[in-house]
């Protein structure tokens, strides 16, 4: 142990703390680790180092910290965690840009499976509530789809970049998984599918899905747009959805709904 310590002291190290939680219902606790510094480290490589040497900074034997990751290029969203207090993707969070000791914890708004891995199922459920698909199933061929103008394609492309990572929901001061607010992620997808000429046929049902799930619980703090790693226009999406809901309300009140 002693020789080991002398060796690391002569080198630059990266200090980091991981919030551990062994089962979904057990108490969380922090563990501190150190690993030799290398150029271009990111949080995933840091966690990989912890896996190869799961020993705390104080020299106690620990276990490899569980985490989710897949694409390693910020397109799948699975490695989303709270790093130094701010929600982001671990695979693109560069160690050299972070103050040490780096704190790594799971998102606070989703149920923890173990350690840094959370269950993001709620977001996929929300997509069902707003029917986030284009209705094209049929027994007979439907022929060519309707044309979509380049402007609409452009707008839709932005919303389609969403990777369901959960940053927007984690940073939202109004959202929690069990209080009836659908949240910015699904609101943007609702707007996306309402843009498409085929998807539009379900607009009223989607808007109803948003209304039934607390669309206006949004308090316009706009953290969602500030943290979105894919720069999805969540500000535009929410206000657009609000307008669709206003139109829907007018139809209901004036009796033109069904």
């Amino acid at each position, binding site marked *: 142990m002693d020789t080991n310590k002398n060796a690391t002291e002569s080198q630059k190290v990266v200090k980091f703390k991981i919030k551990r939680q062994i089962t979904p219902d057990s108490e969380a606790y922090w563990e501190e680790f150190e690993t030799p510094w290398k150029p271009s480290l990111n949080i995933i490589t840091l966690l990989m180092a912890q896996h190869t040497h799961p020993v705390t900074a104080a020299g106690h034997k620990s276990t490899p910290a569980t985490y989710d990751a897949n694409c390693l290029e910020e397109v799948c969203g699975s490695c989303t965690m709270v790093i130094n207090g701010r929600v982001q993707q671990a695979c693109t969070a560069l160690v050299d840009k972070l103050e040490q000791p780096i704190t790594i914890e799971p998102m606070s708004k989703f149920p923890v499976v173990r350690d840094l891995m959370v269950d993001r199922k709620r977001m996929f459920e929300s997509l069902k509530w707003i029917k986030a698909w284009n209705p094209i199933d049929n027994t007979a061929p439907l022929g060519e789809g309707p044309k979509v103008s380049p402007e609409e394609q452009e707008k839709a492309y932005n919303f389609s970049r969403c990777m369901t990572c959960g940053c927007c929901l984690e940073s939202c001061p109004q959202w929690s998984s*069990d209080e009836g607010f659908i949240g910015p992620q699904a609101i943007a997808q609702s707007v996306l599918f309402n843009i498409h000429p085929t998807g539009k046929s379900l607009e009223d049902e989607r808007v109803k899905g948003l209304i039934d799930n607390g669309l206006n619980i949004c308090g316009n703090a706009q953290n969602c747009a500030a943290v979105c790693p894919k720069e999805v226009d969540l500000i535009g999406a929410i206000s657009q959805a609000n307008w669709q809901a206003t139109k829907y309300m007018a139809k209901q009140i004036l009796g033109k709904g069904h």
Partner: protein
Amino acid sequence: MSINNNSLKANNGTEFWLRRLHSLTGLFPLSLFLVFHLVVNNSAIKSPEAFNTVVNMLRSLPYLELIEISILGIPILFHGLYGLIITPKFARSNLGAYSQVHNWTYYFQRITGIIIFIFIAVHVYQFRFNEDLDFESVAMLLREPIWAIAYFVGILASVYHFANGLWNFLISWGITIGKKAQTVSAYICGSIGLIVFAIGCSALWAFYSSLPN
């Protein structure tokens, strides 16, 4: 938080309709009344007599109580109480981690809401239930620096809540769609707020600086 806690909590839109009503009552009648009230107060700048005339005129309106209860009392109670219920239930401030400007405006909207609720209760108790309210009785209170400050804070909180609430209203009803429209509306709402604030303060100053007779 248990792992199975992903259940759908659809509420048939009750929460949505209440929020829209909350937003609407904030604009009409509450914002309109606030502006009207602060403008009318400025008759105090002209002269104590002018102020007394306006007060007496308002007090002699037909169906006064009905008007007060229906277009002020009920909306204020609904807006205020509903706000006090949903603020602790939903709002979890996270300014430390996410400190962009609208997270602050969001936060202050809730803080000012709480201040206003207390302020209105005190204000109504002091002035509405004072049967012989006139310039001198108001001035007697507002010449005391502590009350002058309390009313200054009350006006500031109310006008902030009004101006930022207006900005929020335009988003919540889908009138300002997108970042650009909302930036423009922020400047417009902010300017309206500043003007209304100045109007409110000028009347307060008239009372504070008046000489006892």
